């Protein structure tokens, strides 16, 4: 399409000499081919995982590429009864509570930030951006010792507090930059009408913030759901493990039964993929804005 093009793009396709036109079609074909190849490579592991979940061990070993002989959910049953059910529940608890807490705290802080002028305002936002870069591994040793001192190892609340703390900088940054775009006149009008800042927040700001709140929720859900390191360190007892911790151990324990492992992985991934199919733009928006995080 681009090579040497003597005619402006607006003219009819036949405008160029015949040879050039053939070249262009060929060119377009090769581009589609490259893109299809990239797409295939992106999807292959997902394909192997999902088809693998329906196979028998012998089938998988014979060829990871073939389609399963029968679509039986037996492997899923085995995975669920071997811990995946419990882990799924734990992941749901930890993820939902920590994301809810993060959203509430971040919305409040971002509103306070964008509503009031105070000394060092810009520094607060810069600090938030800088905090996004800190990898959890750096905080791990002190936090673990504090947790052990407070007898909070293998409790959900310690992980929830840490997740909330780690999700806050990005959440505040994102919401503060959105809140500051809300026209000042709207807020002023409400205040002139005698609304308290709580009322303005609830009745004016939050109703306007649907899309950014959904975007933020999606990104945070994804992050908390996928987090491994903190959960690995803090949730040691068998009944408290999240899906990601379970997966990391299932890997070595069930190494011999690949289809069951694949079934477990599918269970961990399907909620994400379903959400991605329905809310693709929120994922893309949030993750590109939240590029600083895993």
């Amino acid at each position, binding site marked *: 399409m*681009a090579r040497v*093009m*003597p005619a402006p793009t607006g003219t009819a396709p036949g405008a160029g000499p015949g040879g050039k036109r053939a070249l262009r079609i060929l060119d377009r074909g090769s*581009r589609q081919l*490259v*893109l299809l190849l*990239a*797409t295939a*490579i*992106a999807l292959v*592991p*997902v394909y*192997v*995982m999902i088809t693998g979940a329906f196979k028998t061990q012998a089938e998988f070993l014979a060829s*990871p*590429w073939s389609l399963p002989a029968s679509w039986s959910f037996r492997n899923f049953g085995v995975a669920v009864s071997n811990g995946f059910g419990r882990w799924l529940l734990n992941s749901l608890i930890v993820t939902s509570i920590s994301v809810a807490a993060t959203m509430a*705290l971040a919305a*409040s*802080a971002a509103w*306070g*930030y964008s*509503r009031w002028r*105070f000394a060092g305002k810009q520094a607060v936002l810069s600090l938030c*951006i800088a905090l996004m*870069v*800190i*990898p959890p*591994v*750096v*905080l791990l*040793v*002190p*936090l673990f010792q*504090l947790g052990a001192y407070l007898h909070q190892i293998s409790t959900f609340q310690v992980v929830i*507090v840490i997740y*909330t*703390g780690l999700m806050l900088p990005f959440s505040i940054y994102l919401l503060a*930059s959105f809140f500051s775009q809300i026209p000042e006149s709207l807020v002023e009008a409400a205040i002139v009408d005698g609304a308290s800042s709580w009322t303005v927040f609830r009745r004016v700001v939050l109703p306007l913030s649907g899309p950014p709140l959904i975007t933020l929720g999606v990104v945070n859900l*994804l992050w908390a*759901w996928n987090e*491994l*390191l903190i959960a*690995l360190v803090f949730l040691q007892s068998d009944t408290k493990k999240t899906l990601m911790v379970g*997966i*990391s151990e299932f890997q*070595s324990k069930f190494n011999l039964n690949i289809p069951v492992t694949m079934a477990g*992985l599918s269970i*961990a*991934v399907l909620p994400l*993929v379903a959400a*991605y199919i329905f809310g*693709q733009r929120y*994922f*893309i928006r949030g*993750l*590109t*804005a939240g*590029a*600083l995080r*895993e």
Partner: protein
Amino acid sequence: MERSRQERDSGAPAATARPPVVPAPGRGTPSPGVAHPAAPGPPAWRPARQARWRRHWGVAVWMLPAALVMALVFGYSVVELYVQAVTNQGSWAGLANVRLVLSDPYFRAAIEHNLQLLIAVPVLAALGLFLAILVYEGLRGWRAYRFMIFLPYILPVPVIAVVFSQLLQQNGALNEILGKLGLGVLAANWLGDPNVSLWAMMGVIIWREAGFAFVLFLARLLSLPQETQEAARIDGAGFFSLHWRITIPQLRSVIWFYAVIEGITMISWVFNYVYIMSNGQGGPGDSTMVTELYIYQNAFQFNAPQLAAAAAALLFTVLVAVFALGLGVRALVLWRRSRSQDAERGLRLTPVSGHGGEAVWPG
């Protein structure tokens, strides 16, 4: 009356002054003694003081809960981290821990591997840019491509790592494909051979992160004005000269942003890949040991938290330096460019945001 006036005059903290003022009996009476610059007369006094109270304390009330949690998770940890890095079992150790870590061959291997992983950054940027330009020029079906190429990036790394450790087995799917394509010579024991294991992991990282680069660059491309590209095309610019001279310079800020964060990822966010694909060992041998795993192992497997703290403090210091340097260079480049453009054209270009995130948000 007397009491409240004193409080007003003495400039006591507004928070304590407010309660007694509200029910004060003589608030309507003029009190000439109170010559407060911001409160000229009693009727105007209350709202003004109240507004100021809200301005100062309102921020605190709204921001306090989040600030507390962040202070605990970040503030406490970072301070405590540096304290632990220079102590050993409660007594002062100076830089002994740091020296011990720096002379540890495992730590050196870890640093080396993290630096080696940085090679993935330009590869990712080039790959993402190439795919984004292809999709951008082909536009038909770009949403479908975006959906599928971005999919890997939303999958949990532990899941990806488990699937890939199956695909990369000696008798796994990748080698099978290579054999069928007649490329059997390329087959390898991807995760079991210390010479290739780190490269294999880099491949997995690239597989997942390329989707992110692609989406980031595509979003920026879609927000560019079309006229420049079309003008260049009419002038007969070919694919490479068009994109090298026109597109890439236009994307410079987002590419820079991407390089900085992806560099930080390679230095400090690869634990999940390595932990699972090497079964928590960083092996075979030390071939996939990385800094994060070194910290984790020392803290939770070898019972040497002071070494873990020293390594973590080093990592943190380096990250802060890299981040500051990245932003600094970017700011400098922007400043110099805007100055030279000012000089050349006598006008200023639309400021490019220093933090690329903003530039991306609308897309």
